[in-house]
């Protein structure tokens, strides 16, 4: 197998992804930038006028910002977890989705914590968290965990990029790319020539890092859950929160992976790399996680209902009255649709699995909403002489705008990164082909999922 020519061929094959910005892509980027600009305006207004212009008040001090934080960080942790598992166990079909997962992990980890900053009323005192950290506080644990995980994810993403950056460095002379991009390939490829010793060394540290990333994902998301569950707030004080958060994070993560696979496959015409089989496998994982998530959610609510503690009873009453529709959408539709779609073989099409993933994702966001807002609306000590806006939370356009900005930023960075490196790892394709060639030589049948 002529590896040099194969690398050139692959760069040529993926060059349209890197070179061309179609009109649709430009429009897409412009739209995302416009959303972000509106968000920046909203942010400036929030800084100037304070949290008064948001829906957050004395009772409900956390609104959709914290929900977005949990949501994005959950996606990131689950991405790290899934990616780590794929690498660690050398999953044969990992190559088609590993880069999507890795990129998703890092971007979500960059965007998620920004939302926590938006929750802080006095940003000028943000540095106090670092100057006067209280090591007993789960908030401090979370800061440490998020920062450590962010470094780990960046490092891990970079390690997986290196072989492709080297291929692009060596084969991008004829590509119509800006000079800075080519210089970046050269700089970031760190003289990697894919020699056996370099490859061995890189594989070794990538594999170690994948283990670290899995552990960090579990630890960090548990810490995030403890921010809630270590308080005595009705609805939060639950021992099951940490594993529930991990399952919920994996559930949202696999949903985002499926949705990303669908759009990337469609946009870049990667049907010969991302098969229906990949969707079915991801769909089955989605179904298992839906069942697990449903089980954890049911257990949590059931124990609250059965204990008949007055505060939990009040909370559950509000979930079954004021938030009834959201409760049904989050905990019934958001769980049952993915389970049923994958259950029926006829429904296991790419579109239907993607649809199930979208429903799961929306359901999970609503679940996080129901976790945060109704709990804060039912405090132990009711505040007096206040208007209804203090008692019940409803997000303002500022919060929605900044939330959509987060989503837009996620999509924009994803789009731009997909223009920087191929979304399907070229080095992985070559490795698989080498592996396949060796097996053919040994007269073995090729693996079904090798691409």
């Amino acid at each position, binding site marked *: 197998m002529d590896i040099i020519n194969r690398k050139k061929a692959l760069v040529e094959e993926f060059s349209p992804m890197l070179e061309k910005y179609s009109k649709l892509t430009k429009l897409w980027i412009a739209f995302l930038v416009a959303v972000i600009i509106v968000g920046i305006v909203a942010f400036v207004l929030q800084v100037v006028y304070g949290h008064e212009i948001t829906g957050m008040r004395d009772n409900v001090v956390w609104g959709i910002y914290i929900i977005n934080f949990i949501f994005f960080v959950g996606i990131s942790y689950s991405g790290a977890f899934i990616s780590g598992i794929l690498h660690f166990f050398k999953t044969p079909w990992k190559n088609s989705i590993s880069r999507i997962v890795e990129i998703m992990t890092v971007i979500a980890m960059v965007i998620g914590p920004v939302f926590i900053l938006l929750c802080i009323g006095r940003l000028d005192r943000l540095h106090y968290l670092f100057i006067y950290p209280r090591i007993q506080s789960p908030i401090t644990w979370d800061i440490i965990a998020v920062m*450590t995980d962010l470094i780990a994810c960046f490092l891990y993403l970079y390690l997986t990029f290196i072989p492709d950056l080297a291929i692009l460095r060596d084969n991008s002379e004829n590509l119509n790319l800006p000079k800075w991009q080519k210089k970046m390939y050269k700089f970031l490829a760190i003289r990697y020539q894919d020699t056996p*010793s370099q490859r061995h060394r890189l594989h070794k540290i990538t594999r170690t890092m994948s283990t670290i990333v899995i552990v960090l994902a579990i630890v960090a998301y548990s810490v995030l859950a403890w921010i809630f569950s270590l308080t005595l707030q009705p609805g939060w004080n639950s021992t099951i929160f940490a594993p529930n958060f991990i399952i919920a994070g994996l559930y949202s993560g696999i949903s985002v992976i499926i949705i990303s696979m669908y759009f990337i496959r469609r946009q870049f015409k990667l049907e010969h790399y991302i098969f229906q089989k990949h969707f079915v496998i991801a769909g089955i994982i989605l179904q298992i996680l839906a069942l697990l998530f449903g089980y954890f959610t049911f257990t949590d609510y059931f124990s609250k209902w059965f204990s008949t503690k007055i505060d939990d009873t009040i909370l559950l009453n509000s979930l079954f009255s004021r938030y009834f529709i959201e409760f049904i959408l989050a905990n019934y539709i958001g769980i049952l649709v993915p389970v049923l779609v994958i259950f029926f073989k006829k429904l296991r099409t790419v579109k239907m699995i993607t649809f199930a993933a979208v429903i799961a994702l929306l359901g999970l966001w609503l679940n996080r909403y129901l976790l945060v807002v109704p709990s804060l609306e039912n405090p132990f000590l009711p505040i007096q002489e206040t208007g209804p806006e203090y008692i019940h939370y409803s997000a303002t356009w500022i919060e929605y705008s900044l939330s959509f900005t987060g989503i837009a930023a996620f999509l924009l960075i994803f789009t731009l990164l997909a223009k920087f490196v191929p979304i399907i790892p070229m080095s992985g394709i070559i490795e698989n082909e080498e592996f396949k060639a060796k097996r053919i030589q040994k007269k073995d049948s090729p693996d079904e999922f090798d691409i």
Partner: protein
Amino acid sequence: MKINQLKLFISAIILIVISTDKSLAQGFNADNYKIFYNFKTVKQIDNKRLFEVSFVTQNAEDKLDEMPVFKAEIKFLNVLGEQEVLLGSVLTSKDGIAQLILPENQTYLKDSDGRITVRAKFEATDALEEQLEEISFKDLTLEFDITEIDSVRTISVNAYTLDNNGESIPVEAADIVFYVQGMLSKLKIEEGAIEQGVYEFEYVNQIPGDDKGNLTFYAMIEESDDFANVIQMKKAKFGTIIEKSKMDKNALWADAAPIWMYIVLSILLIGVYSNFAYSIVNLFKIRNEKVEPES
């Protein structure tokens, strides 16, 4: 046919219920009830004297069926020979209790031995017969003293009666019991007999007191033939002070984090960041590896 059977069944049930329900049973008939009429007197800790009558009836067949006699007029009479002096008249309460409390300086008719006889009389009504109970006692004064000298804790009583001239006469013999007040009941700590008007003992018990170490002691002469009931009370700091149990507070709420937290967190972070450093070192090794360019 089935309907008739049902009617019969329901009627039987109703009959059973009616016949077993006491509320619908025949009205009160004193013949079916035993009468308990008890009279006692207690000289209280403030030296006031209590006269108390308990007037209760009990069903002869069902001993659990007790019925206090309510609003029965009890007359308390001080008797000496043919002389009768009405001390007071009290109606029984819902519990069948009639209490009369007389001050310390109350004067009584006494016989030559200094005995006082008091009669508690319930005059007959249409439903109940006359009831009469009489008690005779000497008016005993009990001085209760608690001292601590050179760490020796002594509890003593001085018991005497007064003759007609007001001279004190030490009590020759009387049983006395000492108690310490517990949370729900009294704990007996000493039992003995007063001789020549005095009883004394050393307190050596280790009984927990309140948060300041206080104990409440009682000296009691109970149902004595000569002195009836006499009670005296005194407080003393003889209790073992039990320090308030300090609740183990959540260490994470303390000002400083527990040491294990620093150790565990440091080990975890050192492990993770060492791995980062290891990866970066290896990246430099990859970068610095001398390789021939692919040809």
